[in-house]
């Protein structure tokens, strides 16, 4: 009992700290990759704090959706971070079914739903552009996401990820699923090579275009949401990989997974430093690759039981 309590406390602690740490690591590494010293290590956290102090400017065209979006986003993301087993420690309400795969996917969809509507709410061309691209991306990634994770948790016979991801799984399945999941995560998180988070050219934006109208506190909330989501996705990918390669025990070790998340962040930063953004028209085939990996994983999981 006390073990569980300690695990949950650790999980909450990691949920609070790991995302910001990851953001700092990525920012610093990227700067180093570009050959410049970059801002202080904790700059992302400082930015958040600064923005939270500022009041925001809201377009007169907008309705309640625009104002509600950051709140919904942050609330649902934190909830997901709390219930998903992405840190290696025990998530809250483990095994109660709240981390149901389908529920998770649709909560993510709800976050995206609000984000897209908020983008359309501003009535600007960029908002619409970002919104329609986000919608197209989500269509592309959802099947792979669901198939991949379902295949990974097939042997545990439950859709509850807090159990499914921590139970034994065939290495092949886990690695295929993890690869599929990572690619899907890149698009879900709007990272390179799908989307460039730091671009200043509106016509190439995806995620940035949807939040173009946000400022001050609400922007801070959104940025924090993005950080948590990034960490969470890397965490799940890390859990999958570690579980596949070293077994469930390693996958439930916070130390290993935490290191894995940071390592993934480092890897991403290096990758973003050397890769170029894909032509929007070639994105579908890139994401289809993820779906194909997921289907292969499902094939292996289904056939070799």
């Amino acid at each position, binding site marked *: 009992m006390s073990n569980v309590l300690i695990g949950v406390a650790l999980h909450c602690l990691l949920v609070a700290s790991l995302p910001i740490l990851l953001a700092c690591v990525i920012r610093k590494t990227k700067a180093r990759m570009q050959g410049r010293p970059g801002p202080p290590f904790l700059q992302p956290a400082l930015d958040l704090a600064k923005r939270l102090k500022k*009041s*925001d*400017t*809201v*377009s*007169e065209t907008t*309705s309640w959706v625009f104002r509600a979006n950051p*709140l919904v986003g*942050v*609330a649902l993301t*934190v*909830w997901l971070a709390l*219930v998903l087993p992405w840190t290696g420690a025990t998530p809250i*309400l483990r095994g109660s*079914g*709240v981390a*149901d795969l*389908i*529920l998770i*996917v*649709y*909560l993510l*969809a*709800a976050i*995206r*739903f609000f984000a*897209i*509507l908020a983008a*359309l709410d*501003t*009535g*600007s*061309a960029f*908002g*619409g552009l970002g*919104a*329609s*691209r986000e*919608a*197209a991306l*989500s*269509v*592309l990634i*959802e*099947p*792979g*996401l*669901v*198939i991949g994770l*379902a295949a990974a948790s*097939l042997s545990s016979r439950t*859709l509850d990820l807090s159990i499914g991801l921590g139970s034994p799984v065939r290495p092949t399945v886990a690695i295929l699923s993890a690869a599929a999941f990572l690619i899907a995560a890149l698009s879900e998180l709007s990272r390179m090579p799908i989307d460039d988070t730091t671009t200043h050219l509106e016509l190439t934006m995806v995620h940035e275009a949807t939040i*173009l109208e946000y400022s*001050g*506190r*609400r922007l801070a909330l959104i940025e924090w949401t993005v950080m948590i989501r990034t960490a969470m996705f890397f965490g799940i990918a890390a859990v999958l990989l570690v579980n596949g390669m070293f077994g469930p025990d390693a996958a439930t070790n916070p130390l290993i997974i935490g290191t894995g998340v940071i390592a993934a962040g480092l890897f991403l930063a290096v990758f973003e430093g050397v890769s170029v953004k894909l032509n929007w028209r070639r994105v579908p085939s890139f994401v289809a690759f993820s779906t194909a990996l997921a*289907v292969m994983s*499902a094939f292996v999981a*289904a*056939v070799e039981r």
Partner: protein
Amino acid sequence: MSTSTTTEWGPAMILALGMFAVATVLGLAKARSRFGLVGFASLTGCVLFVTCAIFATNGRIVLPPLIGLAGVEVAFRIDSLSRWFIGIIGLVGIPVCIYLPGYLDHLRGRVRPGLVWSGLAVLFGAMAGVVLADNAVVFIASWEMMAISSFLLVATEHQKLSVRRAAFIYLGATRIGSAFLIAGFIWAHALTGSWRFEDWTFQGTSATLPAALILVGFLAKAGSWPFHLWLPIAHPAAPSPVSAVMSGVMIKTAIYGIVRLFLLGHLGAPWVGWILLFLGCVSAVWGILFGLLQQDLKRLLAYSSVENIGLLLLASGICLVSRSYGIALASDLALGAVLFHALNHSIFKSLLFLGAGSIDACAHTRDMDRLGGLARRMPWTAAAFFVGCASICALAPLNGFAGEWLIYRSAFVVGYSAPSGELRLIGLILLGWVALTGGLTAACFLKAYGIVFLGNGRSGEARKAHEAAPGMVIAMCALACACIGLGFGAPFVWQGLARMSLVSNPGGWNLPVFTTVLGGGILLAAAWAFLSRLERTHRPTVYSTWDCGFGPLSARTQYSATSFGQPIVRLFGKLYRYEIDVVGKGESQHNFPTTLSAELKHESYLESRVYSPAIKGMLRLSEGLIMRLQAGSIHQYLLFMIVTLALLLWLGGVI
């Protein structure tokens, strides 16, 4: 023989049907009344339906044989399945009855309200007759009445050519469908010698042909691919409350038929499950892909009905297939999914159609590229429509999610417990397929809500729109509340299904909805409290949307319905030969056109390659036959006679 019932709820059910009969007569008699007694009678009937659905006990009702066809009695049966669908009819009926008077106000001068009321009353009564029918004859009689009343309702605004065309396409489709159904029923009757559904037990090869005929009949009514063409034509043509009933409830009667005969009945042919699975998969994606293309809001909703019917068929397919492989849990879950999703779809789809009706009535257009910014002008409608959209996108924890979750779960159960690898793989792939459908649905309804309600108005009408009449708003809000309530109450609904012994596994629902809602809600409240605490000192500044410094943004710079769907549509462009023709005019046309226009082209293969040629062929056959045979020459006529004589002599064995 007098009325005999084996349930004490028989009189109530007959009273409910009688109410609709009264409403029909009243509506015909007082063609100008908008609500009055007609509406009251219909409303009472619907309330009685819901009451019966919740409390009635099982049993049969046999009426004196007013119309006895070939020795068949007029018998109705109340059992769990009928109660479930009667409840759906009543639940949609009540808000539609509340909504209708306000809507009819907008159609004043164009239609006679009383006639719409009586048409609706017949439709409700006939749908109830379909789901209550104890034998095939009563079923068919109600089915035909349903078809004709809905045809008349589609033709309400018959002054418009497009409406007339739609009505007749609908009539033709539904008639052909019923021909198949009747043929199948007769065949089944010939095999078993009984008209009662419960006596129809046959398996194996003898079941193949009757099952195929019956299935085609049901699929045509349900609007499944490839029989769906009438649906997006007929539903938008009808007045919105009627579309709500047709899309929300009427096409579900076909699902009822499938559940009654195939899922719960004994009309088993081994391939039925696979066919349902295949057609369900195709319909789901096909319907929503075409929905994404639409600019007309009601057409979009109609195509989305095709998609949802696809999901229902898919679930039915899972149910049958997994049962044939002995996976009890999966078939149980899938059956629950069919029933629950049928209820959910009828609620949110009628909500959305009513919303579209309000938009049509208040902004005078359904063309999404002429709408926009309605959220501020019609806040209540916007709120209700938002709930409907969120629900149809299956956002947790609304009712749309609850139904789809059951489908996912049944597919997953197939995935881990099927006896063979192929089947397990199919289960997993189905998960992805449903997810794909879900993603497309989300895009489609993001477009519907985002383009119509958000941003700036794209036309004068949209900018001058006003909130709908109170009755209409109340109806929509009631449905929105039902969406939320059913979503939260999903575990109870499952228990209800188990108590009605429609599903056998009381623990089938294992998703802690309340915990999620509670946790998410607490976090949301916390975030809101935090933000409003911060905002107490610094209020947000209201300013215009960023215009890149070029001055006020025109509404034309916004994304339109077409452009929103474009990235996705282009992904699947090969499926419907999607092309955009951009035409520039002006001197140096290529670089500096003075005007630019873009035209979107797509082609529905089913229509252009299958149905049109078939209809054209039929016309040509008729033309040819009639021109050749009735050419006006008496010599030729006499020759026919001699040829016929020779033929008859030969066939008769004389020469």
